[in-house]
């Protein structure tokens, strides 16, 4: 109990005379803030990217893709194969029609607004059921394209990221002119990075005959996936892989988000080491500035433990302030910041927002506390071991 009281008293004293050590204390605070800021900023990219990729993925929809294809771009399916898929077990039926969308996925070069450079924008040819096979995806402005016409509906994110996709404008891809007639949203999912048109028009424009790349089917039940997969795998006329949309997109997200993490964690680790040196520095100078004071306290009968603990509390608190500051700046500056990148898996642009999530902030704060504890320990040990007589003589 006595020790606790002493710790409290000494900590309070440290706090009161903190104003004399503003310069070196703020160095420690800013150092830790920078670590947390960089950590949260870099990893919020990975978070945001994953969120966009997985948001779109539904458990109720299956993607059928040519076997061995790692992306929609590399896949290819014939009209006959699509017809076989439509009649497979497990596919949701609306009256006598299967709820499926056979699609063509190509790329088109459109300029990015942010760096005025051409980018691989996904250009998808879809059937009339495109919205029915996707979760929470729908038109929010304008109208749907008319079958057979060179008309586009564009994702909300694509519209804000790429040039020339405003409602009503005409845009040329090669020799063909297209008119933007509608805008759709997909709850922030990856589909919003895409530009859609009628599958038949796209097949013609890209000279793809009557071929497709993927089929999305709505399952009549979430558990029908295994049955559907078995039926399609066993059909000798087909050579396909079957995934739930969620599985497919999360495997697509892996490459890019691993890359960001592989970059982000070592950078944070290195910076954290730098910040530990900064914290050590300012705590050592705090201890040496308070040398006389500490010696006086010890002479008055305060124990070494209270001096040690109070010094560590000081450094941890400073680090906590830094962590909160860095986290707050990261949140205010980056959360919701829209960027787009080339996804390794799909070879096309994915537009996403930085997501500074609660768990990232918590990780950042924990990092800050660790820096504070490590940075405070050695100086605290020195403070506790300060030879009283000698320190007092220096008065």
């Amino acid at each position, binding site marked *: 109990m006595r020790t606790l009281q002493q710790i409290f008293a000494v900590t309070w004293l440290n706090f009161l005379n903190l104003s004399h050590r503003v310069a070196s204390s*703020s160095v420690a605070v*800013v150092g830790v803030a920078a670590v947390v800021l960089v950590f949260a900023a870099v990893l919020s990219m990975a978070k945001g990217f994953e969120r966009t990729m997985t948001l779109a993925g539904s458990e109720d929809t299956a993607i059928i893709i040519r076997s061995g294809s790692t992306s929609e771009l590399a896949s290819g399916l014939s009209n006959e194969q699509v017809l076989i898929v439509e009649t497979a077990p497990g596919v949701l039926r609306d009256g006598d029609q299967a709820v499926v969308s056979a699609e063509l996925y190509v790329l088109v070069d459109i300029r990015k607004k942010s760096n005025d450079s051409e980018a691989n924008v996904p250009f998808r040819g879809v059937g009339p059921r495109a919205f029915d096979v996707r979760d929470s995806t729908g038109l929010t402005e304008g109208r749907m394209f008319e079958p057979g016409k060179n008309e586009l509906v564009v994702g909300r994110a694509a519209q804000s990221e790429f040039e020339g996709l405003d409602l009503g404008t005409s845009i040329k891809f090669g020799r063909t002119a297209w008119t933007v007639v509608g805008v759709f949203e997909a709850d922030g999912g990856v589909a919003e990075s895409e530009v859609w048109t009628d599958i038949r028009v796209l097949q013609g424009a890209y000279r793809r005959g009557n071929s497709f790349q993927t089929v999305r089917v709505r399952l009549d039940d979430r558990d029908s996936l295994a049955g559907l997969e078995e039926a399609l795998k066993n059909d000798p006329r087909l050579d396909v892989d079957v995934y739930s949309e969620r599985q497919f997109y999360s495997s697509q997200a892996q490459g890019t988000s691993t890359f960001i993490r592989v970059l982000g964690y070592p950078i944070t680790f290195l910076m954290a080491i730098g910040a530990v040196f900064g914290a050590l520095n300012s705590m050592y100078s705090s201890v040496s500035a308070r040398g006389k004071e500490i010696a006086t306290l010890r002479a008055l009968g305060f124990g070494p433990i209270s001096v040690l603990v109070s010094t560590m509390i000081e450094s941890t608190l400073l680090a906590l302030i830094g962590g909160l500051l860095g986290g707050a700046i990261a949140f205010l500056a980056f959360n919701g910041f829209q960027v787009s990148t080339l996804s390794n898996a799909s070879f096309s642009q994915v537009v996403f927002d930085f997501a500074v999530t609660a768990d990232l902030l918590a990780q950042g704060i924990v990092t800050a506390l660790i820096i504070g504890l490590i940075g405070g320990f050695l100086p605290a040990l020195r403070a506790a071991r300060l030879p009283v007589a000698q320190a007092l003589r220096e008065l």
Partner: protein
Amino acid sequence: MKYFGLIWRNVWRKKIRTSLTILSVLVAFLLFALLNALGQAMSGGGAMTGAVRLVVIDKVSLINFLPLSHKNKIAQIPGVAVVSQQSWFGGFYQDPKNQFPQFPVVPDEYFALYPEFVMPEEQMEAWKNNRTGAVIGRDLAELYGLKVGDRIPIQSTIFTRKEGGRTWEFDIEGIFDTTDPKGGTALLLFRHDYFAEANTFGDGFVGWYTLRLAEGADPVEVANAIDLQFANSPNETETSTEAAFAASFAKQFGNIALIVTMILGAVFFTLLLVAGNTMSQSVRERIAELAVLKTLGFKDGTVLGIVLTESVLIMAMGGLLGVALGWLAGLAIGSAMAMFVPGGIVVSTEIVLLAVALMIGAGVLAGIFPALKAMRLSIVDALARG
């Protein structure tokens, strides 16, 4: 320089403090060197060596094929020395993780386009005599322990063989090296005639064309002539230099440069604070001493110089160590990720020079206020306080 002894002793007056400062500077410059090297590697490497090459792709998108019939028309355009086709095969070796570029090419033309790739003559002859032969770069051979005479199965994610299946087997007939120190060789080349004959899409299309300019030809003029030739055809083209093509592709990844710059900004801001704090503490403690120096007749400028040099010295010690460590780390990481960054992660001379400039700049910036304070000391006041 005659004061170096004095400065050196002052630097180490507080060993722990100076060491900690040097260590945090070290970390900052380690990050600086590594991130810049990585940024350069990602943006397609440094300057191009050797001949200027142009790349001709489909205007609408890189993924669209161009007809093989374009080849003769391009070859006839004045200023074009060699033109040849390549296609993206999109294959992997054994496991989907083992991805590296494979291109169907025309052997003689390809090696004429890329004179930096060198391979023994007899291996070239062997390749030309074997339709299912392939040659690989030294980097790839070392990565998977492959040698001449091996048979390598490549599974394409795009192209199916007419005989069925997407696993293509090639006999390794040669291993080539590069004379370009910045260029990587983690790639496999096989014969376009075999590819055209054996794949289900059939003959007559290619991914893109690469061409080498004749001596003295203007790249912009040639590029315009090519694009004009195919304007208003069903397959319009877009021609750019290899460097511009690589740069525009790198830009697709987004503003990596911007993010790197932001991180480095945060790092350097922190670094400056730490070093500046050390310097001002150190000057504050030595006020009496500096006053004694001035009493002894040291000029204001000399005192300023001594304090500034001390600050720059601390930066330089940490910075040079950091850059050296960054260089080592770059070598290690680069060889571990040889497939993704073919040229390796190289801390180039430009990066080192930039780092040295930053060390001096940051040292001066961190030291200038304490140094000015030291210079303006009034001897009487300072001695009275001390």
